[in-house]
């Protein structure tokens, strides 16, 4: 668990490229069901999760992967939130690679994270926020590392096993941030056409790099549009269809996390959730939560009904007010 050595599959750009070369890069149909999409995640996969913290998290995909009882996953996300807590409590994940994990200032340090990490059940491999971003970007660019000026001198270097590189021009020593090629990327976007061409509004987080870095790309979209519509604003497309493997139409696919301009994060829900953890402890409280929200409702619509239409409308109005 406490192995600081980088696993070669993370930075092996030759193998990662051969994997892409062997795969069809089709402009054809990508639309499918959420369970068909989730079935492409297999035991032991390194899974990169798009969005950031409680923003544009692909929760419908995360939920479906948990329902499929996947095990032994490595979860990679720059800032982790409740999706990480659910994955830990469900026993799906044995390692997380992240820069930060909790929910947000008002809810303090994540008790779930502390429980599973301090007990040794899950290894938390910490990288700086930029370093994780550059790991995805290096992979997106098809190179094994990117030079940078961050993380040097800190104790984070030893945690992840980052090396340095000498600039061949000046001789200066730079961080050599290693590429991170995920097996699968999970992403949630604002709109896409059935061929997978995907557009994001507002803050783009790291999704574009993650999509290019991963061997398999699964996308859920708030809105499904015709390709005439995506072609009307090609400068809004951030993920081209040829690299998408599966697309699922899931309105409110990030809820109770937010989706920029469409719905605000449900802080009341976070407060209930953390109050329950405070009262009953991580295992019992999150166990109940999983039963109620993940294993119980068969479909995402059933899941959303637990929140109710009024709650969804309220969160939609809050987002509109802030972005109008």
């Amino acid at each position: 668990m406490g192995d600081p050595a980088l696993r070669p599959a993370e930075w092996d750009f030759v193998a990662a490229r051969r994997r892409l070369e062997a795969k069809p890069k089709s402009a054809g149909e990508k639309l499918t069901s959420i369970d068909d999409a989730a079935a492409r995640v297999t035991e032991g996969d390194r899974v990169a999760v798009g969005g950031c913290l409680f923003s544009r998290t692909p929760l419908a995909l995360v939920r479906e992967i948990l329902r499929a009882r996947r095990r032994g996953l490595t979860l990679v996300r720059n800032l982790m939130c409740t999706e990480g807590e659910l994955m830990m409590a469900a026993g799906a994940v044995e390692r997380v690679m992240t820069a930060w994990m909790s929910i947000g200032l008002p809810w303090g340090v994540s008790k779930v994270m502390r429980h599973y990490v301090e007990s040794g059940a899950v290894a938390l491999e910490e990288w700086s926020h930029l370093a994780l971003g550059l790991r995805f970007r290096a992979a997106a660019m098809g190179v094994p590392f990117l030079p940078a000026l961050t993380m040097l001198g800190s104790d984070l270097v030893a945690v992840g096993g980052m090396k340095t590189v000498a600039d061949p021009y000046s001789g200066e020593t730079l961080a050599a941030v290693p590429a991170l090629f995920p097996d699968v990327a999970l992403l949630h976007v604002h709109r896409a056409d059935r061929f997978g061409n995907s557009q994001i509004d507002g803050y783009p987080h790291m999704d574009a790099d993650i999509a290019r870095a991963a061997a398999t790309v699964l996308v859920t979209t708030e809105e499904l549009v015709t390709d005439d519509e995506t072609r009307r604003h090609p400068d809004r497309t951030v993920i081209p269809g040829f690299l998408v493997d599966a697309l699922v139409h899931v309105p409110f696919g990030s809820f109770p996390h937010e989706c920029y301009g469409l719905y605000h994060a449900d802080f009341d829900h976070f407060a209930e959730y953390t109050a329950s953890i405070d009262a009953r402890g991580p295992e019992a409280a999150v166990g109940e939560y999983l039963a109620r929200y993940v294993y119980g409702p068969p479909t995402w619509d059933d899941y959303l009904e637990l929140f109710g239409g009024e709650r969804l409308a309220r969160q939609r109005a809050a987002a509109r007010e802030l972005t109008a």
Partner: protein
Amino acid sequence: MTVTASELLAVQGSRQLRDDTTVFAGVGVPLLAAALAQQRHAPKLTMVIEGGIIGPRIKPGRLPISTNEMRAAYRAQMLPGITDTFLFAQRGFLDYGFMGGAQIDQHGNVNTSVLGPDYWKPKVRLPGTGGANDIASLCKEVIILTAHEKRRFVARVDFVTSPAWLDGGDSRRRAGLPFGGVSRVVTTLGVFGFDPETRRMRLDALHPGVTREQVREQTGFPLLEAPEISVTEPPTADELAMLRALDPERRFLG
């Protein structure tokens, strides 16, 4: 109404920011301090937020609780993505990094990762660096805002999450960090700098009514003292009024 600890930090912090600059600000007190500076004496200051947000307008009463939410992006000028936002800092565009800290040591290094001697078997697992390490590595100048408590001010942090002057002297430069470093630590007791040679923390100014003894008692390592220790101006009525208008529900001002 008396001045709370957070109000004092926000006001004293805001005074550190010059006009015509950029500041990479964490949510909470740092963002409040930056917004106050922008309203009061630095109208051409640009706030930059880790979620990939440049130049937002902070809406009074709607302060963000995370760097990745719509309130943080309210009326922003640009939303370049997280990696590219940090790269602005790496290139040299971001003048100030404005951050808090769980544990800080005599060379300004900050720990927000783990308590205890073994990273892989932590006594207490903290949330992690987020962007703090990057801000500390890349901004032109870092200013730390923090409550001054003995358990926070330790001789050596358990884990260097965010590098300041490392072991002092030129150890920062030798580690491959040619730029930046912590210039100021603004606490609830005073304002601190670093000796330019040894890079050890130095008391520069006390807040009104605070004694050197109080500072020593709340600091877990021997502090240097500037040849002349000044006393800071207390928050003015204007500053407090502006600040309180930004957070009328006192979600961050305590």
